């Protein structure tokens, strides 16, 4: 399943991403502490966080995750969106809390 299909299946909207929307998603990871996430988020994972700022884009790029999913209705700030577009990091938005967001992704990629 790719990022775009994941967004459609789970009802997330895409706030950023071009070619990255075609990237495969193979797992899901959840953490808001950036120093933790950058070392532990698996490659090609959907990374769930409430950190809607520019540093999340840098961490997503370094960890090579498939996409960032902002949970709990968090909106990305302008700097994050600009950076995400520049670096083509897909950013999805979920209204649901982190656990429910992660569960939905888990079920979608296992289906």
């Amino acid at each position, binding site marked *: 399943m790719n990022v775009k299909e994941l967004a459609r299946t789970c009802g997330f909207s895409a706030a950023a991403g071009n070619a990255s929307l075609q990237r495969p998603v193979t797992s899901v990871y959840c953490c*808001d*502490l*950036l*120093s*933790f996430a*950058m*070392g532990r988020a698996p*490659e090609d994972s959907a990374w769930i*966080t409430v*950190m809607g*700022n*520019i*540093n*999340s884009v*840098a*961490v997503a*790029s*370094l*960890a*090579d995750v498939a996409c960032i999913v902002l949970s709990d209705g968090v909106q990305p700030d302008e*700097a994050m969106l600009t*950076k995400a577009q520049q*670096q083509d990091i897909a950013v999805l938005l979920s209204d649901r809390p982190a656990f429910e967001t992660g569960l939905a992704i888990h079920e979608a990629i296992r289906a």
Partner: protein
Amino acid sequence: MTLNFVVPGDDFTRAGEASGAVKQKMKQLGFPSDVIRKVSIALYEGEINMVIHAGGGQVDVEISQDAIDLVLTDHGPGIADIEQAMQDGFSTAPDHVRDLGFGAGMGLPNMKKYSDEFHLESEVGVGTTVRMRIYNH
């Protein structure tokens, strides 16, 4: 191959430029992804540290087939107690940095964890130099 970067102080929007560029270059050169990841994380933590604590600094990277050497130099306040600074969870980062998802006291420990050789020299009032080597296995 040598790469040099200036890390501007207090500018989170530009932290990650050095690690991003080094990552890109290493990808082009065909390094294994786990080696790239170690270098990227160690360097990004260093960049963030220089932005938060030192008013910026200088990053010098030497890429060879066998190893990647990272030298991070700043002229910030220096570290009074290096042993304490190296402890997991110890941080002097201000609240606004914590609100951004940093300041958990993992920067230096992560740099040590993801590098194969790690040396830190610091003098209060003069600055800090971190040297890291990551081997290409």
